[in-house]
């Protein structure tokens, strides 16, 4: 049964860790943005017909595709779990508590 309760892994400490990871990512991206090490290269290289492929990860600034994909995958995984755990941590809304009480009461009358 312990295994089945996998969702409880996503408890408050995990969410905090997640948030701080995202902060870190944001900061590192900001600092990259200031340096713009890829920019001159990519802009000059990419004028012209290659534009149609700009959104392809493989085409980005000469960064190996695998590396980008992996970091993007990891980020996607974190965001997916965050969406889930955000709601999973909310208290049970009153309407459901009342609903279950009503169902139980109905059962008892039978």
């Amino acid at each position, binding site marked *: 049964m312990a295994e089945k309760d996998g969702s409880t892994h996503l408890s408050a400490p995990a969410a905090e860790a997640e948030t701080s990871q995202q902060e870190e990512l944001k900061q590192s991206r900001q600092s990259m943005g200031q340096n713009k090490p890829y*920019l001159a290269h990519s802009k000059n290289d990419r004028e012209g017909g290659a534009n149609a492929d700009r*959104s392809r990860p493989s085409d980005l600034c000469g960064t190996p595709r695998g590396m980008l994909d992996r970091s993007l995958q990891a980020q996607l995984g974190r965001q*997916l779990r965050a969406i889930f755990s955000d709601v*999973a941590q909310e208290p049970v809304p009153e309407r*459901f508590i009342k609903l279950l009480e009503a169902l139980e009461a109905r059962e008892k009358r039978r």
Partner: protein
Amino acid sequence: MNSQSSSLKQALLGLIPNLRAFAVSLCGDIERADDLVQETLLKAWDHLESFQEGTNLRAWLFTILRNTYFSECRRRRREVEDRDGSKASDLAVHPGQQGHLDMQDFRRALNVLPPDQREALILVGAAGFSYEEAAAISSCAVGTIKSRVNRARAKLTEMLGVATPREFGPDSATEAIVARTVGSSRQS
């Protein structure tokens, strides 16, 4: 009987947060999600005899919820025209906050995925089910779940790949080119 219904009530109460999380991730809308959860609880209560004692109550409830969701989707699809296409172009044309791949982009991309792929990704990637459990919940083959998860990941990467150049700090001019290019290639 009373003690049984009381322990069922406790078990259901404990699983409601999980059910809501699943429902929100599936349909992307908290109000619709709570309606799904309510329907799931009612069905579970009324069909308790079909739950096999000793098996996974959480998986059983997830199964009821996703069946409810998908039959609702089928009903809606008959009523309303499928608007996935317009959602997809929204995503490409309005890439959200500058500078990082933000949560809004992700939520929108998730909502654009085909529902069966979204479901597989949530079950395995967020709810913590194994491929085998996810296959049982979605009543399909394990291989089908694996391929849905892979396709979902690939599609998200492709959609959100639009955001990746910004991670490496292009200026707004580069960004405008990317946005224009993506916008026009979507239209053609």
